[in-house]
C-alpha cells in the first residue's frame, strides 16, 4: 500500500520553486529514495543542486537522508542558505 505525501518545493529549480504537490510513494520510502524518485520525475532536478546538499524537513523537522517518510507527511524541500 502506498503513502501519500504533500511536497513543498523551495529549491532553485524554476519549474518547482514555490510549488506544492501530492505524491504517492511506496511504504518504507526514505528521504534519499524520495529524492531519487524526484530526480527521475523531473528532468534537471538533480542537476539543479547536489542531492546531499538539499535540506529536507519532515513536518517541519530537519531530517537525515535515511529517515523514513510516513502517510500524510508534509515534506519541505529547501536549498541551504547563508545569511540571517
Amino acid at each position, binding site marked *: 500500500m502506498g503513502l501519500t505525501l504533500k511536497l513543498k518545493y*523551495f529549491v532553485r529549480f524554476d519549474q518547482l*520553486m514555490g510549488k506544492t504537490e501530492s505524491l504517492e510513494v511506496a511504504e518504507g520510502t526514505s528521504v534519499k529514495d524520495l529524492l531519487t524518485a524526484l530526480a527521475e520525475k523531473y528532468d534537471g532536478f538533480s542537476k539543479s543542486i547536489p542531492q546531499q*546538499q538539499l535540506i529536507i524537513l519532515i513536518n517541519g523537522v530537519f531530517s537525515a537522508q535515511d529517515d523514513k517518510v510516513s502517510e500524510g507527511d508534509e515534506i519541505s524541500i529547501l536549498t541551504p542558505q547563508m545569511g540571517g
Partner: protein
Amino acid sequence: MYAYAGKILHVDLSAEKVWEEKLSQERVKRLLGGRGINAAILFELTKPGVDPLGEDNVLIFGTGALSGTFAPSSGRMTITAKGPATNLYLKSSVGGHFAPELKFAGYDYLVIRGKARRPVYLWIQDGNVSIRDASHLWGTDVQRTEELIQEELKEDRLEIACIGPAGENLVKFAAIMIGHNSAGRGGLGAVLGAKKLKAVVVQGHKPVEMARPDLFKALALEALNRLANFEGRKGLSLYGTAGLVPMRNETQLFPVKNFQEGYLEGAYQFSGQYLAEKGYLKNRFGCSACGTSCHRFTTVDEGKYSGSKSGGPEYETVAALGAGCKVIDTEAILKANELCNRYGLDTISAGSVIQWAMECHEKELLSAEGVKLTWGNGDAIVELVKRIAFRQDIGDLLAEGVKRAAEKVGHDSWKWAVHAKGLEPARAEVRARKGYALAHAVNPRGPDHLCSQVYAEDGATPEARALIKKICGSETYANHIMTEKRGAIVRWHEDCYAATDALGLCTFVTLSRGYLIDPKMMTELYGHAAGIDISEEELLTSGHRIVTLEKAFNVREGAARKDDTLAWRFMNEPIKAGPRRGMTTTQKELELMLDEYYELHGWDHATGWPKRETLESLGLNDIAEELSRLGKIPQE
C-alpha cells in the same frame, strides 16, 4: 605598519578640534582591530553612567584589520558607543565601502566626542579634516542628504554615513545609514543626532600595504573558490537574506504575530525567492571585496506604492514588518522598508514596536488617530513608520521602543513587549532553539543575531555537524532543542564572531551555515596581510578578550546576571502549534545554560561578573583595577 593605516582620528565637536593619535601596537596585538579596539576606546574615554545621548558619550567608527584588502567580504566596519536603547554597550557592524575608504583616507579609527553647537558634518579627505555647517541638511532624509553633500563637495566618489529625521528626533532605534547599508541596531543614529552630527563623509586614495602580497593573493583566491562552490552562498546571492523566509516558515519557527504564532500562510509573498520571481528585485550588489552580492535593490512599479525604491529588504526586515505584523502585502512591506531607510530607522525595532502596538490595540489599550492598528494591515505599518520617525502622536510613544512604551501604557503590556536589556530581538524563535536563546540572553548589546548566531546547533549542513563535533566532541549535540553544551557552543561562536568583526570580515562567510573561512584561514589571511602571525587559538583568545571587555563595560554600567535574560513571552508562553508545540525556554533551563556559559568564561556564577583572575589572564589588568575601584569584582 602593514594592513593598518596606523592612525586614529579624534574629533571633539564641542571644542571644534581634530587631532591624530598613533595606533597602539599593543592594542593591535591584544584586540586585532575593529570591534575589539573600539570596545577598549569606549571603556577608556567614557565615565561610568555616561548619558548615551549626552555630550560625554563617545562614538567610534572602527575599520577591520583586513578592511581595504581584497580578502573576501572584508569591508565591514564596527560602530560603537554607549547605546540609547539599553543604556549599555552597543556595537553595530555595517558593510558597504566606508571602512576601506576611511583606511584609504589614512585612518583605522574615527573617535567622535562632544556635541556641536549647530548641525555639522565631518569631511575627511586624505588626512584633511574639516567640520562643516550642516544647517541646510538638518531635516532632510537620507537620500536627499547624500545628494546635497555630493553636490556641495563636487566629488564623484564619496562614502557618506548619515542620519535621517529619526536620528535627529532621537528615536531610540534610529540607524546610521551608509548608502543602502545600515548600522541599525540600538540607536546609534540617535547618538549622532544628539551630537548634532548629520553626516561623516570620507574619501581616500592611499593604498593599504600588504606584508606578503603574493601569498595573500593566492590565499584570497583559495577562499573565494571555497565560497563559490558552496550552495548556501549561491542561495544568498540569488535571493538575499530574505531567501531564509521559506526555511524559517516551514520549520514553523517563524516569528509571526509578535511571536505568538510560528507559521504564516502567504509568507512566501515576501520571500527573497518571490521578490526575484515577480520582478521586484532590480539589482544585486555587494560590499567591498565581496562576490556574493547579498544586498538587494527593489522597486514597486504599480499600485498605490508605485515609485517606492530602496535597498533591501533583508530577512530581518520582512520578518519584523511583515510576519510579525501578519502583513503579507509585498508592496506595503517594500514601502515601509523604503521609509525606514529614508528616515534612518532600524527595521527590526520598527517592526517590533508596531506589532507590540497592534497587540495593545487588540487588547483595547492603544489606538491611533486615522490608523487601524489591526493585524495584517499593510497601510498601518507604512503610516506608523512615518509617525515614529517624526515622533508624531502615537509615533512619539513608539519611538521609545517597546520597553519604555510598555512602561507608559501599563497594564500587562510589558508581557508582550518582546525585548531583553531594552532591545527588541532579532527574528528568531528562541523557545525551541536553546543555543540561540542563550546567545540572545548573554549578548552584551541585547538579543541580536550578529554577535553569536549559532546555526551549527541545527546540524542542517555537514559543515555545521562537523563544527559541533569539534566543539562538543560529538555530532549528537547538533540538536537545537538540547540545553546540554549550549554554553560551549555559544562561547565558541561569540569568540569567532568577535574575531571576525575585529578583522572586518563578514560573518556570513566565516560563520553562517557554511563555516567556510574558518579560524585557520582567518589567521593566515591576517598574517599575510599584516605580517603578524598568530595561531588559531590566539585568534579566538582575542575574540574572548573582546567579549570580556564588552561584558566588563556592561558590568561597569550596572549590569549583572539578572540582565542576561530573555523576553517574558519566551519563558512563559509556549509555542502554540507545530512540531515544537508546548515548548518554552524556561527560567530553569536558562539558569543551567548560564551556569555552564559563565563557568567556561571564568565569570562569577552569582553576579555574572568577570573574575579578577579571568581579566588578568586576558591581560585586562587595567579593566580589573577599574572594576575593583567600583566594587564590581566578585568576592573570592
